[in-house]
C-alpha cells in the first residue's frame, strides 16, 4: 500500500500513524491493512475511573443527597462529582492516543457527536460513554436501543418527564431530528405518537433502565403509517425501516470519514450497504477498502477537529500533562471539550472549528506543547461561576503549559528522516505554493525544530 494512502487511512480511522508503522504496512495489501485495523479494534475495553470514594453517595438523587448533607457539603460533593467528569475527559483523551483499538476509539468519538449527551453524574456519563464504545462497530439497531435507555440520555432529553397523561416530546423529537432521520423527514404527528411510545421510559437510582408502567401509554399509536401498541423499541425498529435513516447516518459518516463535500453517488452506494443490515463494521470496511476512498480529492481535505489535532501531535511527540486541567484549557480555547458538547446538535465541525482566534491558537498549539511558547489568552468563565471566578485573572497560573515531552521517542523514530520525508509524513494536504517555497528556503536546524515548524503551517490543520 502507498505511504500516502496508509497515512490517509490512519488519519481517518484513527489519529494519525507512527512513522515506524508505515514501514511495516507498506508491503501489505490494502485489504490486509484494513482488516488489521478491524482486528485491533475487535476487543472492547471499558474506560473506567476509580470512583470508590463516591461509594457512599453512589446512585443517589439530588433529593436524597440534600436530605443527608447540608447545603455546603452538598456543594462540595457536587464539585467533586463534576470534577470527576473532567477526569473522565482526560482519561478519554489519553485513551484516544494510547489505545490499540484505534478504529473503535475514533468511532466512539464519532458516535458521541451523533448521540449527543451531557451529564454531571459521573456514573451515568461513564456508562453512556462505554455504551458508545461497546456499540461503536456493531449493530446500529441494538446501538440506538441501548443509547435510548441510558440514564444520562433519558435525563438529558427529559424523558423522565415523559408521562402518559402529559407526554414530553423532547426525546422523540431529537431521536428523529438529530439521531436518526434529520429534520423534515417525519411529521409532527409522528413525534407526538412516538413520544407516547416512550412514556414511562425511566431509570432507577442505580442507572438501570426500567419501564414505569403506570406512566406508560399502552394504547394504540400510529407511526409512519403503521398502527399498533408500539413501545419505544418498536418505534426505533420502524425508524430503521426508513431508508432515510441509513442515508442520514451515512451522510454523517461521509462527512466525517471521507470528505466534507458529499458525492451523492457514493453516498447512495454506502447507504445501500448500510441499509441492508445496519452493520457498522460492514459499512466502514466497505469504505476503507473502496478504491475511491483513496482518490486524491479525499486526501488532506478535512479540517482536523481540535481533538484530532491535539491527539495527532501527541502521536508524533508523546507528551504528558503535568497539570491535567491544562488539557481542559486547550480544549476550551479551541472549542471542543469532550463530554461537554455545546448542545444536543453536537459540534458542527468542518469550517466551523475555524475562526481568526481559534486558527491562531491552533497554529500556535505545537509550539505551546513542544516549545515552551507562552500563552497570552484566557478561557471563558462558566455560567455557574461567581463574578470573581468568571474573571479569575490567571496571574498565578503559569502561562506555560506544564508538559513533559518525550522528544527521545521522536528522535528514535524520526532522526534519520530527510526534511522531505518528514514533511511527507506530517503534511497530508496539498501544499500551498508559497508556503512550499518558504519551507524549501527554511534553514533546517534539527528535525525536532522542523517538526514544530511543519505543524505550525495551515496545511497541518488538515487531514
Amino acid at each position, binding site marked *: 500500500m502507498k505511504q500516502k494512502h496508509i497515512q490517509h487511512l490512519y488519519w481517518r480511522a484513527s489519529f494519525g500513524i507512527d512513522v515506524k508503522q508505515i514501514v511495516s504496512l507498506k508491503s501489505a495489501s490494502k485489504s490486509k491493512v484494513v482488516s488489521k485495523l478491524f482486528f485491533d479494534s475487535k476487543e472492547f475495553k471499558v474506560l473506567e475511573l476509580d470512583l470508590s470514594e463516591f461509594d457512599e453517595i453512589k446512585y443517589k438523587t439530588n433529593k436524597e443527597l440534600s436530605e443527608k448533607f447540608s447545603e455546603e457539603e452538598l456543594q462540595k460533593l457536587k464539585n467533586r462529582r463534576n470534577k470527576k467528569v473532567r477526569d473522565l475527559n482526560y482519561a478519554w483523551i489519553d485513551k484516544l492516543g494510547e489505545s490499540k483499538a484505534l478504529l473503535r476509539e475514533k468511532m466512539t468519538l464519532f458516535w458521541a457527536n451523533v448521540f449527543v449527551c451531557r451529564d454531571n453524574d459521573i456514573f451515568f456519563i461513564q456508562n453512556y460513554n462505554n455504551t458508545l464504545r461497546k456499540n461503536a462497530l456493531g449493530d446500529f439497531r441494538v446501538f440506538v436501543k441501548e443509547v435510548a435507555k441510558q440514564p444520562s440520555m433519558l435525563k438529558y432529553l427529559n424523558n423522565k418527564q415523559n408521562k402518559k397523561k402529559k407526554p414530553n416530546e423532547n426525546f422523540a*423529537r431529537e431521536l428523529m431530528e438529530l439521531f436518526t432521520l434529520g429534520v423534515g423527514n417525519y411529521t409532527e404527528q409522528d413525534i407526538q405518537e412516538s413520544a407516547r411510545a416512550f412514556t414511562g421510559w425511566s431509570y432507577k437510582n442505580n442507572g438501570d433502565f426500567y419501564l414505569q408502567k403506570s406512566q406508560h401509554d399502552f394504547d394504540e399509536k400510529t407511526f409512519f403509517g403503521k398502527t399498533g401498541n408500539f413501545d419505544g423499541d418498536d418505534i426505533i425498529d420502524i425508524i430503521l425501516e426508513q431508508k432515510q435513516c441509513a442515508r442520514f447516518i451515512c451522510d454523517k459518516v461521509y462527512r466525517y470519514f471521507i470528505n466534507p*463535500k458529499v458525492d451523492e453517488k457514493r453516498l447512495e452506494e454506502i447507504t445501500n450497504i448500510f441499509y441492508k443490515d445496519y452493520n457498522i463494521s460492514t459499512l466502514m470496511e466497505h469504505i476503507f477498502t473502496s478504491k475511491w476512498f483513496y482518490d486524491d480529492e479525499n486526501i488532506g481535505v478535512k479540517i482536523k477537529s481540535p481533538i484530532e489535532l491535539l491527539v495527532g501531535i501527541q502521536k508524533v511527540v508523546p507528551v504528558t500533562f503535568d497539570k491535567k486541567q491544562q488539557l481542559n484549557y486547550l480544549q476550551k480555547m479551541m472549542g471542543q471539550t469532550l463530554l461537554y458538547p455545546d448542545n444536543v446538535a453536537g459540534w458542527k465541525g468542518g*469550517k466551523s472549528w475555524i475562526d481568526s482566534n481559534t486558527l491562531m491558537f491552533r497554529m500556535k498549539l505545537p509550539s505551546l506543547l513542544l516549545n515552551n511558547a507562552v500563552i*497570552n489568552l484566557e478561557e471563558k468563565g462558566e*455560567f455557574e*461561576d461567581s463574578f470573581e471566578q468568571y474573571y479569575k*485573572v490567571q496571574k498565578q497560573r503559569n502561562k506555560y503549559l506544564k508538559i513533559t515531552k518525550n522528544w527521545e521517542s521522536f528522535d528514535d523514530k524520526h532522526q534519520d528522516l530527510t526534511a522531505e520525508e518528514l514533511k511527507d509524513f506530517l503534511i497530508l494536504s496539498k501544499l500551498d505554493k508559497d508556503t512550499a517555497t518558504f519551507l524549501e528556503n527554511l534553514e533546517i536546524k534539527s528535525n525536532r525544530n522542523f517538526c514544530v515548524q511543519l505543524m505550525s503551517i495551515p496545511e497541518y490543520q488538515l487531514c
Partner: protein
Amino acid sequence: MERRDFLKQSTLASSLFFVPNFIKAFENVSKSTFKHKKLVIIQLSGGNDGLNTIIPYTNDIYFRNRPKLSIPKNNVIKATDELGFHKSLAPLKKLYDQGYVSIINNVGYPNPNRSHFRSTDIWQTASNADEYLSSGWVGRFIDKYGKNPYTAIELDDSLSLIMKGKNMNGIATKNPNILFANTNTAYFKKVLEQQTDAHLSEHNLGYLYKTMIEAKSSAKYIYETSKTYKSSLEYPNNPFGNQLKTTAEFINSDLDSKVYYVSMGGFDTHANQANKQSKLLKTYSESVEVFVNDLKKNDTFKDTLILTFSEFGRRVQQNAAGGTDHGAANNVFLIGENLKIKGFYNDAPNLVNIDTNGDLIHTVDFRSVYATILDKWLQVDDASILNKSFSKLNFI
C-alpha cells in the same frame, strides 16, 4: 479558483457577494446616514434576577413569594408607581432620569429553556426554542454586511456563538496588543510574508489561508487604529470595567466596527443571592455610567446603542437557599441618546398569570428587539439575518 480571483471576490464579495441586489441598494443608502452607528451588547451571564433588578415594589405577590429575598420598599429607587431600581443601580437610574434608558419588560420566547447553555444559544443564534442554529445573529450580520472580522468584536479571548457567521466570523480580543502580538509571532509572520496572490484556494485550505490573512490584518488594524485614543476616565477597577473601557477606546478611536459584545459573569445566584446580586449590579451600573460618560465626552454616545440582556430571568419564588432558580422572561435594557420611548417601554411583569413552572410569561419576543435594532439602528434587512420577519418595536 485562482487565489487572485478569489481574493478579488472576497474583498468585494465578503459584503456583497451573498447579498441580493435589493439589499445592496439598501445598504448603499444606509451608508451615508448610519455609517457610524455602533451597537454594544452586554450579556449578564448566568441568568440575572430581573425581579430584584427592576422591582415591582407595590406588588404584594412579589413580597409574598420572596419573604426573605424581596427588596423592601424603602430600599428601592422608585421610578414609577409600580417599578423601581435596585439601589445598586443608582448610576443607571441617573441615566434613566436623563432619558437615556428604555426598559422592556417580559422579554423572552415561547417554550423557554432553563438551561444556561441552551438558552444562551437561543438568544445568541436567535433561533426558536426547538431549533439548533450554528451561526449567531451578529455573525450573520457580519456575513451580509461586514467586510472584515472586526466588523464585530467580542471583548474576550475566544469567540462566542453569537459572533459566528456562515462565511465570516467576528474577532475576539480583550487586549489589542496581545492579539497583535499573537498574530505577529515570528514564525506566523514569516509564513504570511511569503504569501503572494498566486496560490490555489482550494476549499478548506483556501479557507484557512483566508482566515489567517484576515486574522493578521484585523489584528493589525485593531492594534494600530485603537492606539489613537486612550481613555482618560477612571473605570471601576474590575475586568468588566476594563472590557467597557477597551470598548470605549475602540469606539472613540473610530474603529470601523459596528458591534461589540461583552459577557459579564456571575449571575447564577442559586444561593445567598442578595449580596452577590447587589455587588454585580453595582459593578454593572457603575461601569456603564463611566462608559456612557466616556462616549459623551467624545461625542460618540449619540451613535451608540447599548443592549443588555440575560439568557433568562429567575423564578418568581425564592428558593430555600436564599437564592432563586432558573426562570424565563426577563427585562432588557436599552441605553442611548436616541430612544423614542424613554423609561419603561411596556407593562410591568404580570405576577398573577405565570406559567406552570412558576415563571413569568413573555410578552415580547427577544427577536423583535433584535429586528428593531437591525432595521432601525443598523439599517439592514433584519428578516434575512433573523431568518424570519419579526414585528418591530418603536424604542428607536
